[in-house]
């Protein structure tokens, strides 16, 4: 019986893995090969990237935006998670409202955000109604545009972070809080010495997962400000593919993005491993 079960398990791993490799990894490798190809092996595509000031701007923005977005998501997600778990009664309304931005398709969120942030949109309308001058939220080359992108991106994703942290919060045993209270710790101290350390793995996991996704930001920037105003690596690659009709340069840019994501993921995983072993040593 064992060998039959083992064979079945092997097939059950091999078939999906092969499928994923064939549909995802093979094209990615093909793209990698193509990025070094210009009628023959060459680094010309990458050289074209290096010569382009917009590529460097895209690379920089691709680091700044995800970091800002991640910070915002973690802070907001943590706040919302604490709010939800702190209630004595569960509020389905609150929970549904919290999950809603995730349930809605991203393109719909971006459509709404565009209408909110247009020069004559609702946000400026609300500001004008209370007497504040309207601002150009999506104006290209402005830092306001980057702020708008960060906020919209975080808005869409915060529910997931919140859910991850809620799960983490619910694993913290109540006895720890009891013990802290008996030791005379106030709510702030309890948060600092009980909640945060116990939540650290969940926060780290959320940070890495959402960080990887944040690095791949594409549709938010494309829909809100177009391919050029706040360039990131993915929209830069897209622009090379459609407007400039230069597919190989586009693949080179996409490979740079893939490298960035891999470095971040591996670095993050290593950091978490070292950090949790530190925690384990301390505990």
């Amino acid at each position, binding site marked *: 019986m064992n060998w039959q079960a083992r064979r079945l398990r092997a097939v059950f791993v091999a078939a999906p893995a092969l499928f994923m490799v064939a549909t995802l990894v093979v094209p990615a490798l093909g793209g990698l090969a193509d990025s070094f190809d*210009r*009628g023959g092996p060459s680094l010309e595509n990458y050289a074209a990237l290096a010569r382009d*000031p*917009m590529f460097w701007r895209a690379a920089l923005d691709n680091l700044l935006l995800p970091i800002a977005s991640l910070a915002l998501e973690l802070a907001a997600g943590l706040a919302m998670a604490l709010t939800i778990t702190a209630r004595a009664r569960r509020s389905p309304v609150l929970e549904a409202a919290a999950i809603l931005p995730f349930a809605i398709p991203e393109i719909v969120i971006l459509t709404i955000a565009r209408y909110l942030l247009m*020069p*004559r949109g609702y946000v400026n309308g609300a500001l004008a109604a209370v007497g504040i001058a309207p601002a150009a939220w999506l*104006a*290209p*080359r402005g830092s306001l545009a980057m702020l708008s992108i960060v906020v919209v991106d975080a808005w869409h994703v915060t529910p997931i972070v919140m859910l991850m942290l809620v*799960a983490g919060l619910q694993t913290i045993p109540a006895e720890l809080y009891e013990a802290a209270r008996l030791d005379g710790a106030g709510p702030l101290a309890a948060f600092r010495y009980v909640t945060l350390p116990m939540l650290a793995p969940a926060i780290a996991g959320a940070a890495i997962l959402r960080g990887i996704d944040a690095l791949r930001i594409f549709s938010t920037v494309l829909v809100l400000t*177009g391919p*050029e*105003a706040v360039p990131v690596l993915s929209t830069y690659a897209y*622009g090379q593919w*459609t*407007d*400039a*009709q*230069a597919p190989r340069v586009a693949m080179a840019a996409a490979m740079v993005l893939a490298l960035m994501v891999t470095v971040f993921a591996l670095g993050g995983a290593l950091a978490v491993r070292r950090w949790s072993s530190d925690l384990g040593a301390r505990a």
Partner: protein
Amino acid sequence: MIVTQSSSVRHSSRSALALIVAALLAVCLAGCRARESGRAQLNIALGVFPSEAARYARFVSSFEAAHHVRVNLVAQTYGDILQALRVQSASRRGSLDLVELDLAMLGRARPGVAALDDIVSPSAHSLFSEAAWAAATTNLHIYFIPHRLMWQAMVYNRLKVPDPPRTWDELERFARAHPGKLALKGARYEGAVCDAMAFVWSAGGAECDPESPGSLRGFDFLRALAPDLNDESAVFREMPVLEAQARGSVWIHFNWPFAIGYLKSKGLAPAVDLSAPIPAGPGGMATPLGGGYLAIPLSAPHPALAREFLRYLLTAQAQARLSRELGWYGSVAAPAGSEDATLYAGFTAMRPYVRARPTLECYPQLSNRWQRAIRAVLFRAAAPQAALAAILPGRRALRASRTSAPADDGRRCCAGLEP
């Protein structure tokens, strides 16, 4: 977190199952309905806005009734339509019968479309200018049918600029007096070339001749305008700059006739905005020809029907209907004295000076290089001579020989530009 089997889960999984069954039914119904109609189909991809697509659908309804066919319109950007054509060519089968492509893409698209000489009768030929047909012709064969021809003119705010500039000097003075109120479409796309080429041509320059004195003169003028351009010019495309004009943050820019239609629909034209000719340079006036051409992909599923449709379009009545019903400014000029004549006065005045960009297979690469040079001069204070020299390095020989046949010029122009 463990997903446990509670009764609520079972209940909701049942309702989810119901949703799935309903969805499958919907899919089947949608598929069945399409097949039931039994009519022949014609699939057309047009580079129009969704609202224009709705009006175009009404325009084709008479063709549908007369030929008992169903016309399916797809509204997309020209770039995506070109991509769809390339995919269809590569796999040698596809769903598109007719594609509309931008003039700048014709050279690239030619290998994938059928020759259409038999459709163009002399009466059809007279509907459009020679420049328009020249862009559609390669090696003496016609591959594209002009569909929606347009050219650029100056769109200006008549309240702020009661006397629009007519020459380069006046334009430069305007820019200096009102910094930030003149805008160019300077994003990284073909539109930047359209705006800049008008100046290069009216100084005597040409795309394949970037180091000629005319090109240098044109770029010197762009350099002079650069400090006073609207900040957003670096990312402006047709729609954003038009919206800026509508808001009043830009007083002069260059755009296609649809801009007037847009401003009219907002009530801004002719009350606030009007069109005027592009200011004349040392070599006269010039404006780029642009717009959509229709072509039949080689692997079209219904080529005979597609040719019927093109024949239908190439009649004076159809062209007049397009002008009237879609509000396209096109081959049939508006009657003098009408409101449209006033609105489109600038475009009408530019009609004799329309010039097509070269229909070369390497045009995207050539255009990319010009875009880089234009943006360097406009936004990074580069020296015009150096920027122009970088476009086609090592081509001094081209300047000497201007008497060769167009085909030779094309090959020489493209030589060395990577595919």
